[in-house]
């Protein structure tokens, strides 16, 4: 009776399959079709280049603030690749790679960052939620949405992304607790990119891992090498299968790195060492994955060159079509349109007032 240890039922593990030197643990190698592997690689490269292009557009003043994803391609695509089309994805604000994987319009992404509400449109069939800016507030949505799925006896799951910083917010806590209590089909994917703006992971929380926060909810948690797309995929696959088969939620901590600025309004030299960035460049998720694909004869240097050309041209098209779209977006009365399903009288009046002002000369 006196002092006895309690068995917590779960242990916290770290998973790595393809290490930074490209060494593979073939026992753990996930079974992924060649097509899928190639598509994963293409999207990693596409989103890396698109991210770079966005940075240029921002620096040129054509776009406002955005949060680059550089370095997190494996952490995002590895997880999202496990999802079926009807599964749901709830991003935070730094999951462009996952969103593009899910088929989100790149023009729309540009539109939003260029300050046009129209870019926020979610097409009717899409199960990818809009970007969520207030940190961690999307977490309870994912739990509630997954509840609705379970309620409707559908087989889909919800995957929600959030950062390391997000784990400090009350909404993270409340969302995970809800998901565990009701055993909803939710997969929480933490993009632990080591920084929350200027706050390093070590100051964000005193716990050794973020994965172990799952224990607070009686939920399985796992830490994976987030720059190892095979490890991310494997962990996500386990979690999604568990969720789909009714066995409840999982927390996955992806150890990755924000190789770029926090947002374009940020200057990381104020708070972090270039050395650290250099160290992480060696662990670049794309080059590592390329090594693997080459070993599997699914990729050659020539393929990469061709792909780079193709992507360049794709991005050019996107940017051009975005620029054209922007010219057509001329209707400022749009701000009244979607506030309510139907415009209430006071907004009808305010809209008229606004239109009258528009038509007045300076």
């Amino acid at each position, binding site marked *: 009776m006196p002092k006895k240890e309690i068995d917590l039922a779960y242990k916290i593990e770290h998973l790595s399959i393809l290490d930074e030197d490209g060494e593979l643990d073939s026992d753990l190698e996930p079974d992924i079709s060649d097509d899928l592997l190639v598509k994963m690689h293409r999207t990693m490269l596409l989103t890396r280049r698109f991210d770079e292009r966005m940075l240029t557009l921002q620096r040129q003043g054509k776009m406002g603030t955005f949060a680059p994803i550089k370095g997190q391609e494996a952490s995002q695509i590895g997880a999202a690749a496990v999802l079926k089309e009807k599964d*749901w994805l709830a991003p935070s604000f730094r999951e462009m790679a996952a969103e593009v994987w899910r088929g989100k319009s790149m023009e729309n992404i540009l539109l939003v960052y260029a300050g046009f*509400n*129209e870019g*926020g*449109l*979610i*097409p*009717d069939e899409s199960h990818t*939620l*809009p970007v969520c800016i*207030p940190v961690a*507030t999307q*977490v*309870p*949505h*994912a*739990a*509630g*949405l*997954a*509840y*609705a*799925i379970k*309620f*409707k006896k559908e087989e889909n799951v919800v995957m929600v992304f959030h950062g390391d910083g997000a784990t400090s917010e*009350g*909404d993270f806590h*409340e*969302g995970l*607790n*809800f998901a565990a*209590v*009701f055993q909803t089909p939710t997969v929480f994917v933490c993009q632990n990119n080591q920084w929350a703006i200027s706050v390093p992971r070590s100051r964000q929380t005193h716990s050794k891992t973020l994965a172990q926060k799952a224990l607070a909810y009686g939920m399985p948690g796992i830490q994976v090498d987030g720059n190892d797309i095979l490890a991310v995929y494997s962990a996500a696959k386990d979690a999604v299968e568990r969720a789909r088969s009714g066995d409840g939620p999982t927390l996955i901590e992806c150890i990755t790195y924000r190789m770029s600025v926090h947002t374009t309004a940020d200057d990381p030299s104020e708070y972090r060492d270039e050395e650290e960035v250099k160290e992480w460049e060696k662990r670049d998720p794309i080059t590592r994955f390329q090594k693997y694909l080459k070993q599997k004869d699914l990729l050659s240097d020539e393929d990469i060159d061709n792909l780079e050309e193709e992507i360049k041209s794709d991005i050019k098209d996107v940017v051009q079509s975005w620029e054209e779209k922007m010219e057509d977006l001329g209707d400022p009365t749009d701000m009244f*349109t*979607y*506030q*309510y*399903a139907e415009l*209430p*009288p*006071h*907004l009808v009046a305010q809209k008229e007032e606004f239109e009258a002002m528009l038509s007045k000369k300076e």
Partner: protein
Amino acid sequence: MGKMNMVEAINLALKQEMEKDGDVIVLGEDVGVDGGVFRVTEGLLDAYGEERVIDTPLAESMIAGASVGMAIHGLKPVCEIQFSGFSYISFHQMEAHAARYRARTQGRFGIQMVLRCPYGGGVRALEHHSESREAYYAHTPGLKTVIPSGPRKARALLVSAIRDPDPVIFYEPKAAYRAFREEVPEDEETFPIGESEIVREGKDITFITYGAMLQRTLDAADTLQEEDGVEAEVIDLLTVSPMDDQKFTESVRKTGHVVIVHEAHRSFGPGAEMAARLVEKSFLYLEAPIRRVTGYDVVIPLYQREKDYIPDVKRILHGARETLEF
């Protein structure tokens, strides 16, 4: 159905809507097994099971946030925050998401949810159990804020709120929960959100009020009639936002005098908006300053002094007479 108090009437609305529409679900703290701390959700669990009547963990932000998530996938959550005084914990979910999701997604995802909570003084409760802060919600674009004054309207408005495609804050005046009974029709009844109602006609002075203040305003109107021979018009606002200013700005064209009565603090309260609209729309008809008979700008005191804070008939009469004598 016969005579009902407001608790029973709200319960009826929930039951009938749940019966009619399988997507309507109820969630909150103690709404299931316990039937709600005010018994508003009594019997729902037995009738609709624990998948549709959810006793949640103790976490308001999650209650609102999970409701948003459910609404995204087509459910119609009616969530309860046990007391409005705790609803500020979930305020950011309502402000950042419930209110904005439709606009953010350019129309794809409207958040059809109702957030119910008891508000206001009058039940000898503890601190944080007697606030009237509807102005926070009313100032938030994308939300609608509804406050019924009696059983029949509560039932009709809640049905409308549940069917409304936009998020509705449904503030229930707990002092009116069991204060009186009204005939509530068994058959479906709705009442348009965004419409006020003239509940007493008169030509000399206009009272604008809502919630638990309606009854005492009507009492004051009767006294004015008896003692002063003054015919008061009384308008029950019913929806605080979007505010129907048509009836009251028209009423004042006839009466020239206005008294606004609410429990909420005066400064930056709903009465300020009414005053501003009156000046904007019926300026030339105002014959005297608009009087606001309201809660003071202090934290509502514990229950022994609550009556000193909340407007009573005496204060309403005093306000009216001052305006009339101006």
